[in-house]
């Protein structure tokens, strides 16, 4: 009686069951040496494996696994091993939010962590709050401390752009020049630099004589340089993206031998080798570094330990391939965030998702983070009210093709008044 062409009821049910089973199968998760046989603590790692953030995602992942291994070798957190559950968000806000849902509802993760690009953070944070899942971001964005997000989102591992930029102004004004031309990408990250630095340099008695906003997908820059006024003493650049090398080369070609002082953010050259032809022009220029890429003369044991664990040599390149330069100025934040999570969970006596709010309260109570193996970038101070950490910034100069630290800013250089108090918000 059943028509031949219609699948039988049994086939339909089997098919549905198979589909259901398939979606319930454990996904490819990464175990970094499980400690005891007790249930692992699952950290959902929202990683940029594809899309525009992929170059950073790769190193973030590497650093994450290294830190996890160190934690698990030392017995895990509260005696339980840490398991990293990684999902690609494609550097897209919509997928980012979906992935958080996957962490909470399908993988049963305790917390979510690891995001870099601001728009993904902002797109995912609402979902984290709805799911009541702590969300530790590693993004450098000022959005956490600005109050735009929620009590579930924290940034304890990396300083934010406002703090970084503000801390640069005194050095620039006293050593490089007071008339500044800013060149930045014409999107939120660049606007943050534009706004915060303008305020900071004016406070030092300086002046921004021109602001060049470059469209983010631009691939050729020479046509913008003529807008740089002749009286410019310092060029402040913070271009990011795949075309950055072009930007630097064309800047060199444009100025030739008569260039003003140049101050850039190493974001432009993360994962790029200084020995690349066309970058000779950068010799003698200055850079902000989140963490010095080249091992300095006064390298701490903590930095040595960190490099050894992650697999990076004293030039900031992969030990397996000296041409594979890491995103050294940013990836430390993954390492430090994981250790902060460990500290928080241990202070809260974290046993499971029912303790999530206790975890957040425990992290909010953290203040000093001394320089150590767990915090190799430098001693830091966490502001529990704004959920944002403050730390040292490094200013380096290119000498002989390597970056040599000239100045380390103090924490106070980067302070600004609180803009929010998340601790007064309910969960």
């Amino acid at each position, binding site marked *: 009686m059943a028509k031949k062409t219609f699948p039988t009821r049994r086939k339909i049910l089997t098919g549905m069951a198979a589909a259901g089973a398939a*979606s319930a199968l454990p996904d490819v998760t990464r175990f970094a040496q499980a400690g005891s046989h007790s249930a692992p603590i699952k950290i959902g790692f929202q990683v940029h494996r594809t899309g525009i953030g992929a170059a950073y995602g790769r190193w973030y992942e590497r650093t994450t696994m290294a830190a996890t291994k160190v934690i698990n070798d030392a017995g895990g957190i509260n005696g339980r091993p840490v398991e990293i559950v990684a999902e690609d968000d494609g550097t*897209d*806000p919509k997928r980012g939010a*979906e992935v958080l849902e996957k962490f909470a509802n399908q993988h049963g993760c305790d917390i979510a962590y690891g995001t870099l690009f601001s*728009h993904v953070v*902002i797109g995912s944070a*609402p979902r984290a709050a709805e799911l009541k899942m702590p969300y530790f971001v590693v993004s450098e964005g000022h959005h956490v401390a600005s109050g735009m997000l929620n009590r579930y989102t924290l940034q304890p591992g990396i300083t934010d752009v406002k703090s970084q930029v503000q801390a640069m102004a005194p050095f620039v004004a006293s050593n490089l020049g007071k008339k500044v031309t800013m060149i930045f990408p014409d999107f939120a990250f660049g*606007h943050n630099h534009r706004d915060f630095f303008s305020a900071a340099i004016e406070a030092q008695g300086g002046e921004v004589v021109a602001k060049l906003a470059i469209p*983010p997908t631009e691939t050729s820059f020479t046509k913008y340089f003529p807008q740089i006024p002749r009286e410019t003493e310092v060029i402040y650049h913070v271009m990011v993206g795949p075309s950055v090398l072009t930007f630097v080369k064309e800047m060199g070609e444009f100025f030739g031998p008569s260039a003003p002082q140049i101050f850039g953010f190493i974001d432009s050259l993360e994962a790029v080798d200084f020995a690349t032809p066309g970058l000779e022009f950068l010799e003698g220029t200055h850079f902000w570094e989140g963490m010095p890429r080249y091992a300095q003369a006064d390298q701490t044991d903590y930095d040595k330990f960190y490099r050894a664990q992650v697999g990076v040599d004293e030039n900031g390149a992969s030990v397996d391939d000296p041409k594979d330069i890491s995103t050294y100025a940013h990836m430390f934040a993954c390492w430090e965030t994981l250790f902060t999570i460990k500290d928080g969970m241990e202070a809260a006596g974290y046993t499971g998702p029912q303790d999530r709010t206790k975890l957040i309260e425990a992290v909010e109570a953290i203040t000093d983070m001394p320089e150590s193996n767990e915090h190799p970038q430098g001693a830091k101070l966490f502001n529990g009210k704004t959920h944002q950490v403050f730390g040292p910034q490094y200013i380096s100069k290119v000498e002989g093709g390597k970056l040599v630290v000239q100045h380390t800013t103090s924490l106070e250089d980067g302070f600004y008044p609180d803009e929010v108090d998340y601790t007064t918000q309910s969960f």
Partner: protein
Amino acid sequence: MTRALTLHLGLIALLFALQFALPAYHHGNLARIMVMATFAMGYNIMFGYTGLLSLGHAMFFAAGMYGMGLAVTQLGMPVGPAFLMGIAAAFALSLIVGLLALRTIGVAFMIVTLMFSQTIFLTILYFGAITRGDEGFGIKQATRQIMGLDLSDPTIRYFAAWLLFSLTLLATLWLVRSPLGRVLIAIRENEERAKMLGYDTWRAKLAAVLMSGTVSGAAGAAYGVLFGYVGASFAQVPYSIFPLLWVLLGGAGTVIGPFIGALFMFYLIDLSSGVTDAYMLVVGVALVLLTLFAPKGMMGMVRERWLKWLP
């Protein structure tokens, strides 16, 4: 006739019932898929039924989203009226785009819609001071309430998405069997002949653009309200390609095709990303295979082979 109605009502009832049966993860996914399917259904009105291939539908989605979002943040409106503002914004944009773009056909139409969409994206970036540019902004959980119902609650959110989806599904079903719908299909098949038969094809096409853009905008506004985020990434080219893809996969010119397409693509990506990092490769191969062996899309194939009455 009633077979079609039964099928579609059945789908609506099934989705309603699933609200109680699905585990949390798939429950959340389905809410998203229903909103995206609404977007795809909007696109289908223009593409599947009228034969107008737009490469810029992201602009309508974004117009709805930003119309709603800016009404909340700049004008302080509660989300209910803001949602209506979003629909109004999408309607206005559809009118402007329709009046201009319908002067072209075929490939020129494709590029014109693409260009308008790019312009909208750049405009969003340009007014970054209020739109917050590419980063976008969130809509606080506390404000996302209508008549005391918290839209961020999973059940209520699912129900809201279901409501939007069901209304659009039934509206589309009614449209394609109405006289206007017949005219649109006639235009798709052969516009010259429709003109010669005395139909005002320009007005019909404009109606299609208006309906299509407004529905897409409603989906965009709904997404912003239900998921709490408004961002410029939704105005970019991928979000114009997705509805085209969903419709083609699910079956252009069928009413439930867009939903099937959106559902399929979501789970294709989701399941394959659980198995491999290279899920885009899996998706790419699946697309190629699908178009080789199921040229009319999944529901198109179903209609051709088994259910000839499928609208």
